[in-house]
């Protein structure tokens, strides 16, 4: 056996070895990935529910839910106050 032939054989064996390792570890990796995705999904659901509960409570304590404005400079509360004042004009 020449040195070149030995190198080629060695490389093939190494490649096959990695292949086997990958084949063995792939299902575990997939399982782990699925677990992470499930956990992140569950976390998102929990955060969304918690946020909606929090904002609902916040809405009940204020006289407005949300304010949009095309400019900065006036606070949300000031706009709500103007909405109230305009009704008394």
């Amino acid at each position, binding site marked *: 056996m020449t040195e070149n032939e030995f190198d080629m054989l060695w490389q093939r064996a190494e490649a096959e070895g990695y292949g086997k390792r990958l084949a063995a570890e792939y299902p575990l990796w997939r399982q782990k990935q699925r677990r992470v*995705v499930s956990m*992140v*999904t569950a976390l*998102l*659901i929990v955060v*969304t529910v918690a946020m909606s509960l929090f904002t609902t409570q916040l*809405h009940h304590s*204020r*006289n*407005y*839910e*949300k*304010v*949009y*404005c*095309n*400019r900065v400079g*006036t606070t*949300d509360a000031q*706009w*709500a106050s*103007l*909405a*109230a004042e*305009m*009704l*008394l*004009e």
Partner: protein
Amino acid sequence: MKRLIILLMLLLPIVAMAQSGLYKSYASRQNLTVAQVSGFKLNESERVDVVIIVADDDATWQQLSKELNIMGENGSVSWLGDIDKPAQRVKWSSTPVLRVVASPTRRTIAFYRINTESQYDALLDYQLNNMKQAK
């Protein structure tokens, strides 16, 4: 990963609250400050959406007055407006309407979107109660 993307796509429209067509139609115009107060509380059970327009100068106010057929210089005016054409005065019906209040001294117009009869009643009660308190 696909599940995450689908979930986010489902959640985004819920999280992002929509701006009304009325707000959008005025928000892009020059010399106008426009705000939408969503869920303005009238009483414990009734809330309405309000769009407020403030003209920056007299010229813009004059233009706005002309568009909405607002007569008179000083006193504030109010009317029930068509939901799609606020300048058009309408009588109360069960369909959604706008309660429009215009104040020339403030160069401000407020549009209260009324979807139900109970919201209309609540709005009138709110005005009556607060005017009494103001006196």
